[in-house]
Every structure is written in C-alpha cells, then in structure tokens.
C-alpha cells in the first residue's frame, strides 16, 4: 500500500473538481438552499422544522455525494483511463482509497458548511451536541460516497448510474425510520431495515437531536458499512476484460 499513489490519486481527482467550479458550487449551495427552503416552508410550524431539518441535514449531502461519486467513477471506467491506470503499478484498493480520500474531503467540507448554516442562521436547535450532529452529517456524506463508488460498477452508462439513486437510496430512506418509526413497521420491513446502513445514520441523528443514548454503536456499524462498500468497490474493478 502506497500513500504516494493514494494521495496522488486523490490530488488528481481534487484537481479535476477544481477545474469544474460549477460542480463545486452546486455541491455546496444545493443542500444549503434546500435547508433554507425547508426553514420557510415550515415557518408556521417551527417544531416540525426542528424535527425534520436535523434528519435531512445528513440526507442531502448523502444524495449529492452519491451522484457525484457514482458518475465520477463511472466516467473513469468508461473513458479508458481506468484500464490505462490498472496496467501501471497501482493496486485496485489504492485507486478506490484515492477516490474515497478525495470525495471524503469534499464530503467533509460540504457537510460542515450545511450543518453550520442550519445550526447558525437557520436557527436549528438540538438537545444534544452540535459537533456530534456535524459528525453524523459527515458520516452520511461518506456513506453516500461509498455507495456511489460501489453501484457505479453495476452501471454501464451515466443514465443507469443516476437511476440507482431512486433504486438504491430511496428504499433505504423509506425504511430508515425517518418517515415512520421503525417500531411501527411490519416486522419483515423492520428486519430488512436492520441490514441497511441508512437506518443507523438516521438512528444516530435522532439520538443527537434528543440528546439521549450513545451513538457509538451506530458509528461503528456505519464505519463497517463504509469500509465494506469500499472494499467491494475495489473488488469489482477488473484488470482484464473480454
């Protein structure tokens, strides 16, 4: 494992992003805008805003990171640069970790800005730690990134990659306990939701919002999913093709 090659790959991806200021602006501004709209949609029901905003704080960056990484990785697979790279002395894991590092940094910046805006000017108040809430948002964004890298291997075109958003993320959203407490779901759905990463992200958010319960277990499970998905992403890269 070479830090030079991982960091080199991450720097290259960040340089590509830097040449694309519109994407950077959309990445940061879109979630901020959504939170602001949310605030004014619930102007007459501030309690609802408090409840929903905290949960969505992590969800918006996750959706954005999912889209950016799945299309970004797919582009590398289809443009021939991936094949070009894999004949050089870089391992598949180094390549994926390079991606994770670059998009991880992007996720960190994005989640931090959105959380700060929500907790500051938009007046989101939570009973638990604000820092913890930012951590959860970063975790969500990282999760979106890892899922994005993984599913890109099942997509042949950018059209398909984008369709994975409703196919892969929306069921998780429905089952995560965000809309309906998991306890009141049919048991079969509850059991399925036990195996979905988003469940633990939403669980952690809810704990931080009410300021009760430990998020350690949620974070551990999320970390496990994160590394599992990245390893699976590396596994799907093929040096040889027909």
């Amino acid at each position, binding site marked *: 494992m070479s830090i030079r090659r991982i960091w*080199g*790959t991450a720097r290259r991806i960040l340089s*590509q992003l830097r*040449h694309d200021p519109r994407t950077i602006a959309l990445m940061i501004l879109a979630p901020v805008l959504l939170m602001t709209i949310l605030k004014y949609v619930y102007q007459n029901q501030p309690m609802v805003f408090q409840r929903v905003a905290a949960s969505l704080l992590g969800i918006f960056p996750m959706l954005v990171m999912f889209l950016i990484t799945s299309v970004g990785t797919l582009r590398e697979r289809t443009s*021939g640069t991936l094949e*070009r790279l894999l*004949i*050089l*002395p870089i391992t598949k894991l180094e390549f994926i970790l390079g991606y994770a590092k670059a998009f991880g940094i992007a996720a960190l910046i994005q989640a931090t800005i959105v959380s700060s805006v929500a907790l500051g000017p938009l007046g989101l108040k939570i009973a638990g730690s604000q820092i913890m809430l930012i951590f959860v948002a970063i975790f969500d964004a990282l999760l979106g990134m890892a899922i994005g890298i993984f599913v890109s291997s099942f997509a042949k075109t950018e059209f398909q990659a984008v369709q994975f958003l409703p196919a892969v993320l929306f069921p998780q959203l429905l089952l995560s306990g965000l809309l309906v407490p998991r306890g009141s779901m049919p048991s079969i759905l509850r059991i399925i939701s036990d195996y979905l990463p988003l469940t633990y992200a939403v669980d952690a958010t809810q704990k931080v919002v009410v300021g009760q319960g430990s998020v350690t277990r949620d974070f551990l499970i999320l970390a496990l999913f994160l590394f599992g998905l990245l390893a699976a992403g590396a596994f799907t890269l093929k040096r040889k093709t*027909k």
Partner: protein
Amino acid sequence: MPEGVRISDLKIIRDGKTIIPDLTMYIDRGKIVGLLGPSGSGKTTIMRSIVGVQAIAAGSITVFGREAGSKVLRTRIGYFTQSASIYTDLTCLENLRYFARILGQSEISVHEVLELVDLTKNKKQLASSLSGGERARLALATALLGRPELLILDEPTVGLDPVLRRDLWNLFHKLADQGKTLLISSHVMDEADRCDSLFLLRDGRILAGGTPQELKDQANTDEMEAVFISLVEQL
C-alpha cells in the same frame, strides 16, 4: 539477446466470436515492429493481450520471459491506446504529474516527456482544449514516462500532420537505438517502410512477416499496399 515478446498459440474469443483463432509471433528486443492490417484485423486485441488487459481463451504470452500482465512488468511497458486515455478535465502538466506519481517518477521526467512530444508550450492547457493530434501526443507522453523498455503504440500517428509524423518516427528510431522495443500498429501501409520488421494481419491471422524489403521482394513489387493485396489474393 535477452528474450523479447513471445506469443504462442494465442486464441481470443469475444461474445462467442473468435477474434484471434491461433496466433504465434515473436518480437525481438531493440526493434521497431509494425503490426499492419485493416481495421478489425485484431491489431488492438493483440496489443491489449500483450499489455495484459485482454482475457485470453488459450495460448500464452510472455514479455521479457514473464507472463503478460504480471506485476513486475507494470513499470516496464508503456501503452498508448487509440482513444487517448487522458483526463480531459486536467491540464497536460496535471495529467503527466499524476501518471508520474503512480510510476514513482520525478518532476524532471514529466518535463522530459513533454519536450519529447513537443507539448512544452501547451503544458498549462486543459486537455479538453487540445486538438486531436495534441491529445494523442499527450497520451504518448504518458506512455513514455519512466522510460519503459517496451512500448505498445496503437496507431500513434493517426491524424497527425506529416512533419510531426516524421518527428515521431525519428523519436521511435532513437528509442529503438537505445535498446527499447516498439510494437506499433497502423492501417496506413506507407508507414511500414519505417519499421524494422512487419507482421501483416487480416481477420486475426498473420498473412506474412519479415522486413519490409523481404515482403516486397516476395511479392515482386515496390509498394506495401500491393504486397498486402497480392497476399490476400493468394489465399
């Protein structure tokens, strides 16, 4: 002479269709070997299998005595693909710096290859704004990084202006004089004369092999195009 590239009884099938039925060839070290044939004759497939990215159905390929695609070869082969595999949203310099980092090469080598392909004045330009020929040269520069011993160049001179084409062939000869091995594909028969030896390909089969002069003598003609036609008509 140490071992060059050896292909024995190679068979490649793609989507149930046999692309290469049974191919055996040997490429000497320190030589410029041309792979000539019409589009669809299997040039790219052969090159991909030497680089080690092509799944093969049967046979064996060794490069410098090592199985194609093995780890030790990864710093020793430079590969130029037809669809210039570069990052179009990066500058020339950023592209080369990245590949140099992967190969463990210094900044000096980046400027060295930029000079070789005559792109120094474009180094800060985004690859997306380069012309087709400039993009091809940038991709060639990435293949030259780290001074690989074997260069696999898939139609490197397509679409280039004649002056540049001559310059690149001079560069190829200089590299061969330094002991590098070059396998260059082309569908333009007049490039054949610039190679040390040739393989003429059609439908995944070798029609003939030898030096340009030998092939012309056999067909009793002065033009490579005519050599090819006479070989096909003999079939």
